[in-house]
């Protein structure tokens, strides 16, 4: 557009004057466009932001769990932010197994970085690959080669610390933020 007016300007009798007018006009056009674009961007944000988690969704962000009914070797699943959280009271064998190594090569991490008390493992029960729920919570479920969890979707296997060992998942099972509110009670979130 600027090119177009410049050529027209040159064709006109008052040439140099036209050039000056053009650069002033270019400036006005550019600044109008810029302000317009910024304004459109600002106006678009509320629309985009309505799609983000709303206040009521955020308000349900923490969950309290009583751990006393869980016996050794047992797992329960609780819901936190609409996601399953696996809580397992590990056997001494499972703890020893978890402490033996840093897990696989993909996401090595010491077991005590992933737990607050060695017998309690608390992890988000969502496969870090594409979000399926790994099996291994119920007796009789396949637990994979590392005695932790097995994801049926694309075959990821997690160990007794919830660390990724085999399969396409890139990361260990996430440890949610939680704290012990008593000897056998936690608050997640």
């Amino acid at each position, binding site marked *: 557009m600027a090119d177009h007016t410049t050529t027209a300007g040159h064709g006109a009798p008052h040439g140099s004057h036209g050039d000056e007018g053009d650069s002033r006009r270019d400036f006005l056009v550019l600044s109008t466009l810029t302000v317009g674009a910024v304004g459109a961007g600002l106006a678009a944000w509320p629309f*985009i932001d309505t*799609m*983000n*988690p*709303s206040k009521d*969704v955020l308000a349900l962000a923490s969950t309290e769990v009583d751990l006393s009914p869980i016996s050794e070797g047992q797992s329960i*699943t609780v*819901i936190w*932010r*609409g*996601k*399953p959280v696996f809580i397992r009271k590990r056997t001494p064998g499972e703890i020893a197994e978890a402490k033996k190594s840093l897990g696989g090569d993909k996401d090595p991490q010491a077991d005590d970085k992933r737990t607050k008390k060695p017998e309690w493992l608390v992890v988000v029960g969502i496969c870090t*690959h*594409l*979000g*399926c*729920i*790994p*099996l291994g919570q119920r007796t009789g479920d396949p637990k994979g080669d590392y005695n932790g969890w097995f*994801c*049926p*979707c*694309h*075959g990821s296997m997690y160990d007794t610390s919830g660390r990724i060992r085999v399969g*396409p*998942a*890139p990361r260990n099972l996430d440890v949610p933020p939680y704290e012990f509110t008593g000897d056998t009670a936690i608050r997640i979130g």
Partner: protein
Amino acid sequence: MSSEFKNPVIRWIDHRLPVFTMMEHSAVTYPTPKNLNYWWNFGSLAGIVLVVMILSGIFLAMNYTPHTSLAFDSVERIMRDVNYGWLLRYLHMNGASMFFVVVYIHIFRGMYYGSYKDPRELLWIIGVLIFLTMMATAFVGYTLPWGQMSFWGATVITNLFSVVPIVGDYIVQWLWGGFSVDNPTLNRFFALHYLLPFVIFALVALHLVALHQHKSNNPTGVEIKGDRDTIPFHPYYTVKDAFGLGVFLLIYLGFTFFAPNFFGEPDNYVAANPLVTPAHIVPEWYFLPFYAMLRSVPDNFIDAWGILPIIISAKAAGVCIMFGSIILLMFLPWLDTSKVRSANFRPVYKWAFWLFLFNYILLGYIGGQPPEGAMLTIGRVSTFWYFFHLLVVVPFLGKYERTLPLPESISAAVMAKESK
């Protein structure tokens, strides 16, 4: 032009709003190559299926409730209590499958006859955009009945976006409107599922504008050179399309009435349960080739020799390959440099084409199998071949293939065939 209409009302309207002239130009007098075969039926079929989908969908929407606690039951209510609700739903469900059958044939027709070449590049690209929008529509639509496959399909596919560097997890949360696929997700998917078919409709309109600019390609791939090469669309192709429609409806309604769940997954008749993943998550059949590509990538594939500064995870690479496979189709007009359009005159490309088609179907089969052992290996080879065909075979043949002599014109080709 407007004076051609005999009816005075039509003439009056057309003088002010030339819709009748437009219709006359595009569906009556429209000069069409006289040698089109039945593979040219699938464009108009796709248009008709789109209309069927929009109509059945709107009536379904009158009885559907987009809420996690009601959606599944509202679909069951449509099936059991709403008058002819079962018919609407089965038409819509099987219509989606038929839509993809028809469009797949339409796309491969274009690949065989080189319909994407100059000057029809934009026509082709708009087509690929329609295909992409169709996939988005079908994906969000499949979430609506809120069965197990709806829920887990939505979870797996939205999670693909987490591979975007840095902001990936925020994008996924934004798509969900929460921390998992939940009510906000279902609500927005319904809104999008209502919107996208109309976006497709607009794209189809552009597709037709581009088509009518340079007219249809034809089995010889030789451009129209004069009036002797064409016949008016009406009555010749209106009749042929109507016949094709009849055959198509026999198949479509055959499934709808006699095997309505043939394409479906039994798991989707189980209400969504966020705590239990079904043993095998499989997408609808039309997504399977892409699903196979997604899962075929070995760990750290991009950095096979361990020398790159960044390591792209198998997940990210799989996602790139899957989306890349579709984006690449848009570049086909420039990857294929052969001046000859139709594979009928390209003895080597013809075989490459059939191999590509076979490979694509094979990918679809692999996509439905658990990714283990031989299936995984075949899936990898097939994925490789998909890209090798488009990126190496097609440009290579464009340069070195010895093509057969082309007929003088469409009518010359037709005459030669007659005299045989």
